[in-house]
Each structure stands twice: as structure tokens, then as C-alpha cells.
């Protein structure tokens, strides 16, 4: 660690070269996970690659296909974007819950997702929104659905030298709404015991024609639960459908018991939180 170097490349190519060439590089965006890991010595990088100076990672704009924001855009910058907040309230519910105001001043969605915690607060909403990451590496560029990024606790599918450049939140059809909710013992400052991101789309008659439900903190990775979507699609998301949704959520859990919650508690409350998230998404879908 005392031989650790700090680099702040100004271009993507330079960043990729550094990340590919070092033996144990660590990418630094907001740093709210990285600095903790340095402090408790769970990582011992040889190079810290600070990507905050790279222009492509700092974009935030509505495009033809949807909203795009860069990997180095901080949570606060996103929250201060009124149009983004209006367009994606569920995503922003996840962003707001990343941590304190101080943490949000630095933390990024990319960092939150790619840190690979199953309990990350932005990942379920991003998955429910069908968000897609643009990734650049030594072998070029690729698009990765967010649900394919995290493959295990603390592990991503990114290859050595690869870096997330930005995320696209694809424009949603009319009568769509999304939401993120989580369960924590305190009102703030906790890691989610259970998290649920939900997105639903209704047709003109109010019947659900598309749904995505993603659960966090109940498995080694954030989950995209097809069975939850199946419980909703084709229904008017009435009480019976919501009950089936809750059951599907509990059934999909494969949690551990740890200092943040027992297995049994997570299984029970996954149903409750998933249901509440879907209810709020439904309210938003009806209003859109």
C-alpha cells in the first residue's frame, strides 16, 4: 500500500491503459466505498485510477433514447437535476438512499452498482428500469444490462481494464412508473436489509402489460425476479396480484443471516417491501 500510486487520467484511453497495465488497479470515482476499503485494508491496490476528470464520464442529459448519465456524476448532481428527478423518481429514490448528504456529495451510481454489494440501493431500481451500461475496455466498447453487471458479492462481470462510461435509462412507454423502497432499522445511514425496485407499465385500460421487479440484499447478487413480473402482468395489480407478487418475492430470496438481518426476516419482509414498491410504481404509472 505504501507503494501505491495515484493517477488521474484525462482521457478514457489513458484510463483503460492504466487499468489494464497495473497488477492490482482500483478505479476511483466518488471514493465512498474505495476509501473505506483502503482504511480497513480489504484492498491493497498498486494504482488508484481517478476517473473524475474524464469528460465522457461526466455527462448528464436527455437523449433520443432516454436519459444518459456518466459514471462519475455524483448523486447530488443527479438529485439537483430537476428534469431527471421528474423523469425517474424511482431511480432517484435509490440515489437518495445511497448514504448521507456528505456521501451523496461524492458517491456515484456506477460506484454503487459496481462495488457489487447485493444490498446496494441503486442497483434494484436500475435493473427495474432496464438500465444499460456502456462499458469501454481494451477490447473496445460494449453495452451491458445492469442486471448482468454484478455476479457475486463484491464481484462484477467487468474484465480487467474495463470501465463503465455511462448508463442509459431507456425512455419508458406511457403509463409507466417505477419506485425503489428499502427496509432499514433506522430511518437513514443503514445498509438495506431488503431492497426492492419495481417498474410497471399499464395499457389504457389499466392492465399491466410490462413489469420488472428487482430485489436487493436477499441473495448473493441483486435479483431480477421474473416470477414477480409474472404475478403482475395481465392483471390490474389488485390485492390478489400483489399478494402473489409478495409470495414470489419471498420465494425468490436466497438470503443469509448476518448482522443486518436474519434469513427468515428477509424472506418475510421481502414480500412486504416488494409489494409497497409495486404499489407506489403503480400510482406513478396511473399518473403518467
Amino acid at each position, binding site marked *: 500500500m505504501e507503494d501505491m500510486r*495515484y493517477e488521474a487520467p484525462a482521457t478514457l484511453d489513458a484510463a483503460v491503459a492504466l487499468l489494464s497495465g497495473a497488477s492490482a488497479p482500483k478505479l476511483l470515482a466518488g471514493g465512498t466505498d474505495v*476509501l473505506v476499503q483502503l*482504511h480497513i485494508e480489504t484492498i491493497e491496490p498498486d494504482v488508484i485510477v481517478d476517473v473524475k476528470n474524464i469528460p465522457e464520464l461526466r455527462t448528464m442529459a436527455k437523449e433520443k433514447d432516454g436519459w444518459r448519465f456518466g459514471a462519475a456524476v455524483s448523486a447530488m448532481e443527479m438529485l439537483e437535476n430537476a428534469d431527471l428527478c421528474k423523469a425517474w423518481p424511482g431511480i432517484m429514490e435509490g440515489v437518495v438512499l445511497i448514504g448521507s*448528504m*456528505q456521501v451523496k456529495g*461524492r458517491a456515484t451510481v456506477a460506484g454503487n452498482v459496481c462495488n457489487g454489494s447485493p444490498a446496494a440501493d441503486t442497483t434494484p431500481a436500475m435493473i427495474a428500469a432496464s438500465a444499460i451500461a456502456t462499458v469501454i475496455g481494451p477490447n473496445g466498447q460494449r453495452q451491458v444490462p445492469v442486471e448482468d453487471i454484478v455476479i457475486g458479492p463484491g464481484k462484477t462481470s467487468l474484465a480487467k481494464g474495463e470501465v463503465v462510461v455511462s448508463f442509459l435509462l431507456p425512455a419508458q412507454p406511457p403509463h409507466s412508473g417505477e419506485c425503489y423502497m428499502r427496509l432499514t432499522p433506522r430511518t*437513514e*445511514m443503514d445498509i438495506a436489509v431488503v431492497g426492492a425496485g419495481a417498474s410497471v407499465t399499464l395499457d389504457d385500460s389499466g392492465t399491466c402489460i410490462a413489469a420488472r421487479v428487482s430485489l436487493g440484499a436477499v441473495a448473493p447478487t441483486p435479483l431480477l425476479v421474473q416470477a414477480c413480473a409474472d404475478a403482475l402482468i395481465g392483471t390490474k395489480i389488485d390485492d390478489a396480484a400483489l399478494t402473489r407478487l409478495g409470495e414470489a418475492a419471498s420465494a425468490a430470496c436466497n438470503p443469509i443471516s448476518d448482522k443486518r438481518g436474519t434469513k427468515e426476516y428477509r424472506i418475510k419482509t421481502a414480500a412486504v417491501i416488494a409489494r409497497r414498491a409495486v404499489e407506489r410504481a403503480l400510482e406513478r404509472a396511473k399518473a403518467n
Partner: protein
Amino acid sequence: MAKKSHVTTTVNGDEYEFLSEPGQTLVDALRNSLGLTGTKEGCSTGDCGACSVQLEGRLVCSCLVLAVEADGKSIDTIEGMANGDELHPLQRQFLELNGSQCGICTPGVLIAAQALLETNPDPTETEIRYYLAGNLCRCTGYDKIIRSVQAAAAEMRGS
């Protein structure tokens, strides 16, 4: 021994230089390299807010920022909050209303409250509580902290 980085930074309007060890945090640099001990270190993991500063006008935990990242940037700490011997209304109200007991969390709370009032001059009680959720206090139970912020906000609005 690894090479240190030469960092030039502006703190409370004054220019400072120091040599940063790799991995050194900003809170460590402020306190130990620059002697500005008003910013406190309570946990080193961003969970208590005692190390709060403004970095380029943004409220952050300085334990979660590398010292090298301060190069070329401006930082505001508690030492710069008063204007000479004229206290900021927040500081004054904390004194009047007993918003500070042991005082260890106070610099971080004041910096955070100042950032709040800069963006939201008329916050509700709930908004203040959620904004300050990242600042742990063990002495006050938060009651008089919230009241001090409310009083300062009212004073600054000229009510």
C-alpha cells in the same frame, strides 16, 4: 518508501501546500499536515460526519476524500466559518440555544447545516433532520441542534 505528491490547495481562502502520502485522506492532511484541527475524525468510514467540510462548495466527508484530490481545489472548514470575530448566525444560535454540549460533533454539524441553509433557506424540521442524518451526535439527542438551525435559518431569512 513511496513517493509523496505535492499538493497545493486553498483552504478557507488561504493557499496551502503539503506533501501527501499515498492513501492519505483529506481529514488527515487538514489536521496533521496543515494543523487545522477543527475538523474532527470520529470513524474514518463516513458514518459520523465529524469530518465534514465543503470541497468545491460541496458538502463531503473529508475522511472519504484522498488528500491528493484536494490539489487545485478549494476547501471550506469550520475555521473559516466565522468572518473574523463575527460569528456566523449558526454559530451564534448554537451558543445561545445550547446546540453544542461536548462539542466534538459541532464543527461537522455546523458545516453541514451551513450547506443546508445555502441550498434551502427555509427548511422544515423533517428536512433539517434528514439533511443532518449523516452527523452523529451522542450528547444532545439532536433537539437543540435542530432548534439552533431553525433559529439561524429564521435569522438569516430576516424574520
